[in-house]
């Protein structure tokens, strides 16, 4: 079997999917909240286009699409606070993970891919469908764009996971992690283009955002979907996402392995 080395990853991914699929009421509650926010954001952003026109390559239809697509993607990439790994480090449970045959960050990534699939199906697609029924949205112009969008979403999940792993690994060093987490999430929310499209930012702020890995988590797949990024630019955009994914995964692994060396597990 050529993919034998991925067998364990596949098992972790299945568990990740099952873990989130096991709580349908939680999924429904999250979907409800996502949808309410989707409506609010769509109306707020539409108010910018009272006089028609275009902002940073976004017209009315693209902006509504952006509002609903980001609602769905935010759940899929999990832009909100995530403490699973940090909690295991603080309680010392991470010691159990260290004796397993797979690196904890690799297992975590596989698990997160499974989670993202569950969230994509139950919390990602429904808001976009609701948005398209109520407002009408623009859809990709052909199968190539759909494919690029799918690839881009996959890379966005990896970038998001690696970023979340980094602020979780901070638990090896920090006594109090809450502040770091809040800082990380707020920065990610804003600079990923989740609050408002990065293309709407005034120039210096846009340049800052584009220099960070955050747009690779959210704004890039959206830009591909609505056609703001097209043709050869799509390849460049995917390449930059891949570069961020590799860089952040390496950084997370390096930090994790250093943290493990100073790990003290209390008790017996």
């Amino acid at each position: 079997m050529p993919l034998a080395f991925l067998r364990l990853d596949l098992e972790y991914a299945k568990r990740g999917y099952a873990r989130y699929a096991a709580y349908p009421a939680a999924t429904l509650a999250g979907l409800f909240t996502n949808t309410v926010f989707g409506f609010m954001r769509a109306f707020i952003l539409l108010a910018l286009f009272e006089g028609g026109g275009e902002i940073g390559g976004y017209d009315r239809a693209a902006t509504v699409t952006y509002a609903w697509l980001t609602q769905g993607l935010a759940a899929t990439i999990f832009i909100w606070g995530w403490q699973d790994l940090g909690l295991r480090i603080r309680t010392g449970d991470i010691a159990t993970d260290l004796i397993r045959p797979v690196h904890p960050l690799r297992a975590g990534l596989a698990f997160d891919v499974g989670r993202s699939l569950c969230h994509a199906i139950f919390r990602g697609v429904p808001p976009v469908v609701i948005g398209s029924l109520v407002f009408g949205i623009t859809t990709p112009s052909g199968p190539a764009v759909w494919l690029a969008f799918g690839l881009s979403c996959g890379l966005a999940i990896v970038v998001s996971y690696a970023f979340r792993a980094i602020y979780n690994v901070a638990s090896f060093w920090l006594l109090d992690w809450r502040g770091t987490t809040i800082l990380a999430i707020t920065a990610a929310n804003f600079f990923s283009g989740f609050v408002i499209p990065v293309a709407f930012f005034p120039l210096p702020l846009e340049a800052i955002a584009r220099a960070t890995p955050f747009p690779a988590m959210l704004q890039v797949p959206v830009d591909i979907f609505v056609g703001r990024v097209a043709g050869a630019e799509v390849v460049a955009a995917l390449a930059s996402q891949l570069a961020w994914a590799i860089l952040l995964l390496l950084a997370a692994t390096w930090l994790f392995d250093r943290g493990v060396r100073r790990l003290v597990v209390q008790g017996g």
Partner: protein
Amino acid sequence: MGEPLESAGLFLRLSAARIRAQLQYRTSFALQTVGMFLISFLDFAAILVIFANVPQLGGWSVSEVALLYAISSLAFSLTDLAIGHLDYLPQLIRDGSFDLLLVRPRGTLFQVVTQDFQIRRIGKVAQSLMVLGYALATLDVIWTPDRVALLIATIPAGALIFASIWVAAICIVFWTTEGNEAANAVTYGGTFFAQYPINIYDRWLRRFLAYLIPTAFVAYFPCLYILGKADPLGLPVWLQVSSPLVALAAALAAGLIWRTAVRHYQSAGG
């Protein structure tokens, strides 16, 4: 009627103890509070980005929207500071430790909100005050006594409205413990909704999130009065000064919902 006063005293004493505990880690505390303060400006930055592209939003200028934002955020951050630990309620219900609260000689709601007190949340209060300062400094308001009085009354009224929404919404976990995220739609969603002029939303969304859940009384109506602005929705003027009354009504309703919900509590399976 000595009990409310005594409870207030107890609330202050418990909170003071938690603050002292958090101040043990001075560097960490300072970093967190300053971090919260700085990072919360990114929240307001979204509004500045909007106005970098358009001169007005639904007929409201940047300073006017800043006033809406500041009042909504200030009211919400005060609520969050006082009762934000209501977010722990799902945990208490899931593991059955809510049982303990039922046998103690205090109200259950009081005991839940005094479980913790996170002083770092003061950072968000400070940020809201700064945005309020910016709004007031850039607006041309003729400050008559009635307008000053309304502005002062609006903050506690808004906080009470948000607190009522929070208490009422979190009650969903008495029926379904996993449902707590749905409450976010009206708590965090409510403050987000109220930060913008409500005339930009569609009518049915306003019915749900502005009137049924009375967030329109947090900032929108009082701001119209303070700014001497004609209501784009053309609603009666008396609504603009009725926030304190709406807040009291909301608090009564929330109290009633809480009592009903607690009676529905079914401990943890064991």
